[in-house]
């Protein structure tokens, strides 16, 4: 007798082997990487007229070229807001929150990555305006959405003011930082931001961002494929800098979420940091523990784009090898071309406990979300 478990169905068609969609979905589903779009026109109501006029006349200065995405222009074909009836918010609700029964979706606008590095008198107001836009046009209208706070990271004083402004608004769950900042990310220039973040109990959400400075060590990629794979190494550089500069000794409560950068590289990085530290650690008087301990105690990870070993079971083996299995959180990257569906992207071999941890429980711990109500504690 043929059981449903032995029927060969294509993963590419997204059909799970013998497991119903409901069974594969956790009771609590949190999505850690959702990208709303926004424009200068969107934030106009929240900008003063003179600033708006200046931007329109002289343009922006810190906008690095992004790589052409030879895949639907970078988005899901069915998720272009301009093709849809209603607001972008309605599309996100319909295609994501309702479709997959997501309890919480964490929005990550990325204005901080480029607007946040304009001169101080543009960067601060534009980040503030984008935060206000997110409050009024998204968060006030949909309680299932949380958001990532935009801060002018190259202007730490203004960034701290923005953190103080929103630290009691529970809907902002983390602070956007770029992996392509102007100084070393571990540099004391940024420590006021880290101090404020740790004090407010808000993790830094780090997403590969605009890269205005080239790629030291290799030079610029030619292709988006190369750039996209390179997100992992942006976050590797960030972890190395923050750990070696002693950021986590100074701010023991600070947490960092690595978004869209993969996970399996975390093993090699920790192994090499530790063996090398044994040899050259005398140059690191600020460090009180081996580097991997800081890594395991301070970094969290989102899954998308989920790594795909030939044998899907190797994914969980690899997650275990990283030592950060309990810090891995599901993300979809909606509405981008490489969207990972919550019910189909994790390997079928995961246990119920493993699935529920990745799909929701780990994010509850990271962001202080009540697993019963989906609200922030």
């Amino acid at each position, binding site marked *: 007798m043929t059981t449903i478990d032995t029927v060969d169905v294509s993963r590419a068609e997204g059909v799970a082997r013998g497991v119903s969609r409901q069974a594969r979905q956790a009771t609590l589903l949190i999505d850690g990487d959702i990208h709303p779009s926004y424009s200068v026109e969107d934030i106009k109501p929240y900008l003063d007229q003179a600033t708006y006029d200046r931007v329109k006349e002289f343009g922006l200065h810190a906008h690095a070229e992004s790589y052409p995405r030879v895949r639907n222009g970078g988005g899901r074909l069915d998720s272009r807001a301009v093709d849809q009836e209603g607001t972008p918010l309605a599309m996100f609700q319909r295609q994501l929150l309702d479709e997959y029964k997501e309890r919480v979706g964490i929005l990550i606008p990325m204005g901080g990555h480029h607007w946040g590095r304009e001169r101080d008198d543009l960067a601060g107001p534009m980040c503030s305006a984008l935060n206000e836009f997110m409050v009024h046009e998204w968060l006030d209208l949909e309680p299932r959405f949380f958001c990532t706070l935009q801060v002018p990271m190259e202007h730490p004083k203004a960034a701290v003011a923005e953190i103080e402004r929103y630290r009691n608004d529970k809907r902002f769950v983390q602070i956007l930082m770029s992996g392509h900042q102007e100084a070393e990310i571990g540099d004391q220039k940024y420590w006021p931001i880290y101090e404020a973040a740790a004090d407010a109990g808000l993790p830094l959400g780090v997403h590969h961002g605009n890269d205005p400075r080239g790629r030291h060590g*290799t030079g610029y990629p030619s292709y988006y494929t190369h750039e996209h*794979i390179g997100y992992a190494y942006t976050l590797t550089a960030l972890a190395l800098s923050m750990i070696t500069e002693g950021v986590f000794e100074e701010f023991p409560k600070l947490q960092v979420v690595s978004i869209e950068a993969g996970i399996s590289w975390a093993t090699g990085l920790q192994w090499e940091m530790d063996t*090398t530290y044994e040899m050259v650690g005398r140059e690191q008087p600020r460090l009180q523990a081996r580097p991997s301990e800081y890594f395991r105690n301070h970094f969290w990870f989102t899954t998308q784009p989920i*790594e795909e*070993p030939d044998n899907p079971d190797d994914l969980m083996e690899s997650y275990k090898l990283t030592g950060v299995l309990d810090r891995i959180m599901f993300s979809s990257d909606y509405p981008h071309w490489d969207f990972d569906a919550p019910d189909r992207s994790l390997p079928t071999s995961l246990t119920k406990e493993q699935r529920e941890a990745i799909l929701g429980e780990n994010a509850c711990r990271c962001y202080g979300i009540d697993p019963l109500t989906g609200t922030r504690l």
Partner: protein
Amino acid sequence: MSEIVHGAIDTDVHVEPPSIDALKPYLSGYWLEYIRGARSQLGNVYSPTLPTSARPEAREAGTFPPRDYETLKTQLLDPYSPRAVILNSVSAFSAGWNPYYQAAIARAVNEWMANEMLAKDDRLRASICVALLDPVAAAAEIDRLGSDRRFVQVMLPIRSETPWGNVRWQAIHDACARNNVTMALHAWGQPGATPTVTGYARTHLLDSVSNAQLVAPPQVVSLIVEGVFKRNPGLRVCLQEVGFNWIHALMWRFDKDWKSLWRETPWVTDRPSEYIARNFRATTSPSHIPSWVSSDEIATMARFVNAAEFLTYSSDYPHDHGNDGSERLFEAVGEVGRERIFHENAEAFYDLNLVSAR
């Protein structure tokens, strides 16, 4: 400190000329005047004061890396009886930013290597040093030496101004392929070629770890996506002194992205991991396995990176990577795996022609 394996093919051993004076027979009058006027010295990316630059016995002997054949023989060849050794000089990495000077120094180092090392022992092979700022001059040097089968490889730094697959380097790709020499991407780079956004690595820990974990993987991506192996299907690339415990994470993400993004680079006709398995190898030292990692975890890592097929043994003499766990890795791959890593993989990959090189 890891034990050096006896009787292996050792694919990364460091030697350098004793001083810039040793290169004088191979430099023109112009460069002799230039060097005299500037009081130039040979560069050294491995500062002698760094704990990683020399194993205790090399440090005790006084000079490191070996700067003449007798020292190499005493320190490495006699005690460990390697079947063959690939000698690397990286002093050309530090020959400044004058491309003509780089070319002159690279050529002189190659002549020194041939006369002072390769001529004295049939087991020795070497990497060709080239001008890193002038791909055409580099290709000419590869062509000049390529028919001498003792030169089996071209020495390039893992760090570059432009990714190594870029068309800017095409003359080097082509020269390696037509001369049947391996392209080595070896740890470190030219002065200032740091992996950080500011261009200054602040500590050796960050600087050192970056070679493997941060710089090497994108170089592999670049060589594949830019079609280097479409143009030169037989080109071989050896990743040297940059570890290997990052390669599985790269393959899993690369293969996945390629399924959708192949339209951007349709000349990448095979899965990226297949190019990595076919066209790339990595040397074993440093293995970067800390003592707190369990044997089961090492076995898992060895399986993920396909260690028995992918790695070629290296001592990285005289460098000291501390307790880097390479013995435990060799244990994990079993006897067949060890035979491949110690001998077969290098012999096949490098076309070493061990009977008669000349």
